[in-house]
């Protein structure tokens, strides 16, 4: 009886989306095809390595299997999860599950969970072959286990990215491009991040406590924080437009940004290692840069539901304006975040003993400053283009696409007219991380026209003051309207 009650309780708490997805997966053709495909692939790889006459078949086979497993799981499963969600959540054809009483986080979590189970199944198919590499010698169990855990964790992040792209307001073509771009950037992040190749190449058992701590910290940063962020962002996209859906992602981003700054600052003070501060700076630059474009896609007029939650005290209301849904407040929040990032980064540079040289600092400041100003200008231009010319033709949710278009065009124009083409050069990979926002920085010359971009930003800033002021003035609770209706008669 007790077991039955326990099972019933467990059944009640199971995520409905996960149950549905797993039922569909188990009944469909995708799972058997992919599992059998994996088995054949592993047999081929194992056969090729075993009969190649290698001196160290264990590590060689392990590396081959591990790379195949990771790459295919990071590519295939997120694309599958994202595609399924995009099919169910297109603008014109929303699945009825989105009008059930399921919470947006539950929907996203259920999709993630089912994809995670699918990945676990694929990993389980690989396990006998991975175990064989140990039998062949040259592979230590702890490293093998840790690598597989890491690879699994990063596959989960990739799934969350796939789901996030699936929820975005864009057509399939644009979602596909964003997916490819995300993949490209993720690849560079992983290759740039030294802890992963080290973990793969070396035995973690040989790491000192400090090295393990650093590794854990970096993992938290490049895995846990972004993953939670992707989950919250996806949930925000799935939430009803009238909800205060920007609130949680903005609070989360701000909290992670502030907490991680404190952590990297303290780390630098103790160890004299400025590298983590540079990571913090680049990721914050990327985060707020993207936030600028996303925020202008929000609504100018907030609904009753958001207004009902606006605090009455003026000071609290000012903060709420930055964090609550609404394009003006969101744009201001991202702008403040970007400025504060430069300010804090400069403070950390001044306080650091083992930081970068002054020349390098100014060079970074100049190029990233140029890219930030360009991104800011593009976002403001997109607001004007949409609100003045396209308001009745294109949904405001697509303003971010206009902003990206303007950003790319403006960078091309800078390249043609304002930058010495002889001085063009690609910068190291760290500047590619922020994605589209860094295109400007990567393409800028050694002396980008930051001052000119600043002047344009100043002009555009003045022009957009009425847009923000109008929204700030309307940011207060409003009474309910009563309207007449025609009563239809009896049955």
């Amino acid at each position, binding site marked *: 009886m007790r077991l039955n009650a326990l099972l019933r309780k467990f059944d009640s708490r199971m995520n409905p989306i996960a149950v549905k997805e797993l039922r569909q997966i188990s009944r469909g053709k995708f799972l058997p095809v992919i599992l059998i495909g994996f088995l054949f692939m592993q047999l081929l790889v194992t056969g090729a390595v075993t009969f190649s006459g290698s001196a160290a078949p264990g590590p060689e086979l392990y590396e081959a299997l591990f790379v195949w497993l990771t790459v295919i799981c990071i590519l295939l499963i997120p694309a599958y999860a994202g595609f399924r969600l995009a099919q169910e959540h297109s603008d014109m054809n*929303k699945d*009825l599950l989105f009008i059930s*009483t399921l919470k947006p986080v539950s929907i996203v979590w259920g999709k993630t969970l089912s994809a995670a189970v699918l990945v676990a199944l694929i990993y389980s198919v690989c396990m006998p072959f991975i175990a064989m590499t140990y039998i062949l010698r040259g592979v230590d169990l702890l490293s093998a286990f840790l690598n597989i855990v890491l690879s699994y964790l990063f596959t989960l992040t990739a799934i969350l990215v796939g789901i996030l792209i699936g929820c975005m307001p864009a057509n399939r073509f644009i979602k596909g491009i964003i997916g490819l771009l995300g993949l490209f950037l993720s690849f560079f992040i992983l290759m740039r991040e030294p802890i992963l190749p080290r973990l793969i190449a070396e035995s973690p058992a040989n790491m000192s406590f400090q090295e393990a701590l650093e590794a854990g910290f970096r993992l938290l940063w490049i895995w846990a924080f972004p993953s939670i962020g992707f989950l919250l962002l996806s949930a925000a996209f799935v939430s009803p437009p009238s909800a205060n859906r920007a609130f949680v992602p903005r609070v989360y981003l701000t909290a992670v940004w502030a907490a991680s700054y404190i952590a990297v600052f303290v780390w630098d003070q103790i160890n004299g290692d400025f590298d983590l501060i540079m990571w913090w700076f680049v990721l914050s630059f990327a985060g707020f840069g993207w936030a600028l474009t996303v925020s202008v896609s929000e609504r100018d007029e907030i609904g009753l539901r958001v207004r009902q939650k606006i605090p009455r005290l003026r000071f609290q209301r000012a903060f709420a304006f930055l964090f609550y849904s609404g394009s003006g407040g969101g744009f201001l929040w991202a702008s403040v975040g970007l400025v504060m990032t430069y300010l804090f980064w400069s403070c950390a540079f001044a306080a650091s003993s083992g930081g970068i040289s002054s020349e390098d600092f100014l060079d970074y400041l100049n190029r990233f400053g140029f890219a930030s100003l360009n991104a800011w200008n593009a976002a403001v231009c997109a607001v004007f283009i949409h609100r003045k010319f396209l308001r009745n033709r294109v949904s405001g949710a697509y303003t971010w696409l206009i902003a990206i278009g303007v950003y790319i065009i403006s960078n091309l124009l800078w390249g043609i007219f304002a930058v010495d083409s002889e001085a063009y050069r690609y910068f190291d990979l760290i500047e590619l991380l922020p994605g589209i926002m860094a295109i400007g920085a990567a393409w800028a010359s050694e002396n980008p026209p930051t001052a000119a971009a600043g002047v344009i930003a100043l002009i555009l800033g003045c022009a957009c003051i009425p847009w923000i002021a109008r929204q700030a003035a309307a940011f207060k609770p409003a009474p309910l309207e009563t*309207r007449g*209706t025609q*009563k239809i008669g009896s049955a």
Partner: protein
Amino acid sequence: MEVKINRLKRYFGLTRAVDDISFSFSSGEIVAFIGSNGAGKTTTMRILATLDEPTEGDVELDGVSAVNHPEQVRKLIGYMPDSLPTHRDMTVHEYLDFFARAYSIPSEKRAQTIDDVQSFTGLGDIRNNTLHSLSKGMKQRVSLGRALIHDPPVMVMDEPAAGLDPRARIELRELLRILADQGKAILISSHILTELSEICGGAVIIEKGKIAVAGTLDEILSQQAPQTVLAVRPAGGLEEARQALMLLPNVENVAVVGNELEARISGGEEEASQILSELMKQGIQIAEFKRRGGDLESLFMQITGKEDEGNGK
């Protein structure tokens, strides 16, 4: 439960799909939502179901706004869309089970609820069939079952009878009557107007996003039909009776339909009784004389015809 649609507008770019419509209906009522293709019925229903957001206006269910509190409204509405469930690799039972879970029906009640819905909609025998193997009529039943799974007080049904065979239509009509008797407020759209007039108490006719007529069926039929149609079956010669009818005042048109004469007259009951006595005076033997009420079909044609004339078509 009262459903109020308040000055609802939905624009897609420059197209005004729904243009300032307001009406309301309550528990136990079945209201027909009628209009040509592209009139704005589905858009309105999608807004009611919280699948879409209005450009302006709101929908309220006992004061709960569908725009501001869609999560609360979702508990109260059962929406049956015009598209059929197409989830691949899912059985009927799994589909209903998923939605029962999605509406947070606890596991101890879930099995019973699904059984009840399956038996009410006649899905018990096909519970283990996959959705894509079902006929259109069966899919409609699954769709109805899904909409009923959380026992909502309001049902919004978009073309539920489309593609159903006559037997299935009759069964659907009976199901709707039972649901209305249970106290559910039902808004139903269909192109089969004769069926709607048999089950609906009220109707809203929408044309090009605007309400053309709305009210109880009796109200709108009497308001909108200044002409009365009389069915006359003479005991004697049909042609003789037709000639006599044609010459009488208030008679506008007489047509022969089978062994009957169908006369359109201006006016109502009084004029009809005068015509009957005139015929009797002239010695025309009458076997059957009845006044035909206006019907939704002719009313709809009349309204959409007016719209077309107004547009110079």
